[in-house]
């Protein structure tokens, strides 16, 4: 719980890289004066940008639902808008999400992350004729999607996963696999077998070594490792 805050000066070390002028990235020491109303790391970043408008980062909803402002905060991935400034040891070290190419400052190229998400066919496939009304699903069947559909695609999980760092082109990663199970678990989807075929590969699914960094960092408290386990179970039961 955040305590009542006061005006204060906070020290940062921020990863800076502008391809237009920097030969190599560096860590910038910078301090910022905060008002009592500045609670979240995103508030501090907004103040820092007021001081130096060249500091670059993504942000939008500022309440943890859009997934824009994921970054590496004192060594751990998280959302700037949901992280209390006063909970962090100073100097607060901010780096871009690990394992993805850096475009500028805290902005990474997420192409590979979304490529893996797209690779699992992230949409319900149902080839029966479209009914006039909704397809029926019991409340219990619907409950199977809880803990899966809430993903905000912030990439905190996949970019904290050593297997994804080593093989971002081959291993789907926790976010993509969570999404894969979201469609397998949906009773309206008819392609479970094809979805399992699509993951039956030494890398795509089986590079998960249950290190569970993904669970540790997920700002929505989701559990990709559990979803991956369920996919592996289905593969096994299909094999026997």
């Amino acid at each position, binding site marked *: *719980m*955040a*305590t*009542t*805050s006061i005006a204060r000066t906070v020290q940062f070390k921020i990863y800076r890289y*502008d*391809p*237009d*002028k920097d030969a190599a990235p560096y860590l910038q020491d910078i301090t910022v004066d905060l008002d*009592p*109303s500045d*609670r979240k790391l995103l508030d501090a970043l907004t103040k820092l*940008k*007021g001081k*130096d*408008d*060249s500091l*670059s*980062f*993504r*942000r*939008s*909803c*500022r*309440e943890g*639902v*859009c*997934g*824009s402002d994921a970054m590496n905060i004192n060594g751990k991935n998280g959302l700037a808008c*949901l992280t*209390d400034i006063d909970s962090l040891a100073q100097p607060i070290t901010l780096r871009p999400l690990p394992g993805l190419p850096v*475009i*500028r*400052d805290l*902005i990474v190229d*997420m192409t590979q992350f*979304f490529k893996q998400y*797209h690779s699992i*066919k*992230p*949409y*319900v496939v149902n080839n029966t004729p*479209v009914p*006039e*009304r*909704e*397809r*029926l*699903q*019991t*409340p219990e069947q*619907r409950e199977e*999607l809880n803990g899966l*559909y*809430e993903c*905000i*695609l912030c990439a905190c999980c996949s970019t904290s996963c050593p297997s994804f760092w080593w093989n971002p082109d081959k291993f789907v990663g926790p976010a993509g696999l969570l999404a894969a199970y979201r469609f397998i678990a*949906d009773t*309206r*989807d008819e392609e479970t077998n094809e979805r399992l075929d699509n993951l039956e590969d030494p890398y795509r699914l089986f590079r998960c070594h249950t290190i569970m960094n993904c669970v540790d960092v997920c700002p929505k408290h989701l559990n990709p490792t559990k979803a991956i386990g369920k996919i592996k179970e289905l593969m096994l039961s299909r094999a026997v």
Partner: protein
Amino acid sequence: MKVAKRTFDAVIVGAGGAGMRAAVTLAESGLKTAVISKVFPTRSHTVAAQGGVSASLGNSEPDHWTWHMYDTVKGSDWLGDQDAIEFMCKQAPQVVVELEHYGMPFDRTDEGKIYQRPFGGHMSNFGEKPVRRACAAADRTGHAMLHALYQRNVRANTQFFVEWLALDLLRAPDGRVLGVIALEMETGEITVFQAKATLFATGGAGRIYYSSTNAFINTGDGVGMAARAGIPLEDMEFWQFHPTGVAGAGVLITEGVRGEGGILRNASGERFMERYAPNAKDLASRDVVSRAMVTEINEGRGCGPAQDHVMLDITHLDADVINKRLPGIREISIQFAGVDPIKAPIPVVPTCHYQMGGIPTNYHGEVVDYGNVIPGFYAAGECACASVHGANRLGTNSLLDLLVFGKSSGESMVDFIRKEPAALPEIPQGEIDKALARVNRVNTQTGGADVAQTRLAMQRTMQNHAGVFRFKDMLQQGVDKILDIEKQVQQTEIKDKSQVWNTARIEALELENLIEVAKATMLSANARTESRGAHVRDDAPDTPEHPNGRDDQNWLKHSLWYRDGNRLEYKPVNLNPLTVQSVALKTRAY
């Protein structure tokens, strides 16, 4: 500056609910479609919607689209166009069922149907009693909907241009729209997107206000581009506010807090609502409470260093009651106000929530300038004004608006594109040069105003002069202030002159869009000398002659603000539905 050119059948600007619904229709029709978005599609602000999307499915009890229509007209304080409202309410069940077929994870009834919950203003049998009409996925309906629409577009192979900022609309000398010019954030390069049909689905501009529930990205880009292209903006004086958003952060605190016994207090700790509403006190209606709060702040009794908010106090309640009845509010308060409401009051301020006005369209999604359809130009969602929300939007009709008018504009575009000749007309160089000059101005300006400070001055002015309750003299002063701030906006200076992912430049360009919305709002509000829906003025009070201050004789009409010369014109409200009887005018009371 080198400008590349790409050509498409259709270009959609904005990848929220409306843009992506239109994209599904266009892409599945086999047309070459580009969707330009300044954020990755699932980061669009539709993602933040919570409660539901309305449709008279009748899954739990009898419902009918005519009842939904009645509620919507009444909610709009009769400013909504009844042809568009009929169209929307009639279409609602179909578009919601389609969304379910796309994979939307709606909650379910015991029978396996889409779960529906009651909501404010949703009634059965023409205002008789509450009805379950809001189709919901927990309290994450917008998130579930936006992701389902993105997923459907992945299936349809829609071509997205992610993290591109549209700069300006491109028009032919005869007025038809030829496409847009846009800036790629990653490279800083500028490209012309020429298309037979162009759709704006760019969302609202809630960031014109200091305190807003809206995301940083809600900067009215499409509305600003339309204004610069000579297209009027309709009913921009109407903004939906909520009395209790967290001061500074803008995150919403539900009315249920006051239901549990919460009290609003000013800087001296006084329970000020006793003076404004001796009976209902803190549980008076939203406009009364918001009006009282703004009056306290304007008269110097606000709290904090800037005296810009009041306090919502529940410290006198038992901690068990708070933990049992208001756990989510406690969480929000701790997260975003840094205050545990068991121990200290929550700083709150009336919070801007939704833009009822926008780019004028008909219910086909075609943009109309005083009744004349502008060929090749379409708008849908919060940036558009069909007008279904009129002077006040009904809860859950925003998500419905996205689906219905996203779809109808997509279908209109398919028809239009198929009738167009294959050869595309020449884009006048002057149109391209105007946009390049704006970017060049931002790139080269020295000795100008700071972007963040200028934006803050605009937001404070809008909050104080055109807030939830309006005062005649404050509106007049507000017009002068906003026109002054506009001069600074046209001279902002950024220190960062780089090309790659220059967010300073993006923010300067966004501010140029915000200021158009701010001007339209302030001038339209100053001119409308009645009270109606969300627009409540001190000089248009509740009288026997004009109940609620509404003046149908003089003001039952839509405002149209033109950027050129800040001209205001008016057009009649359409009281004639398509197939049913008109919902007749009467005094609005719940």
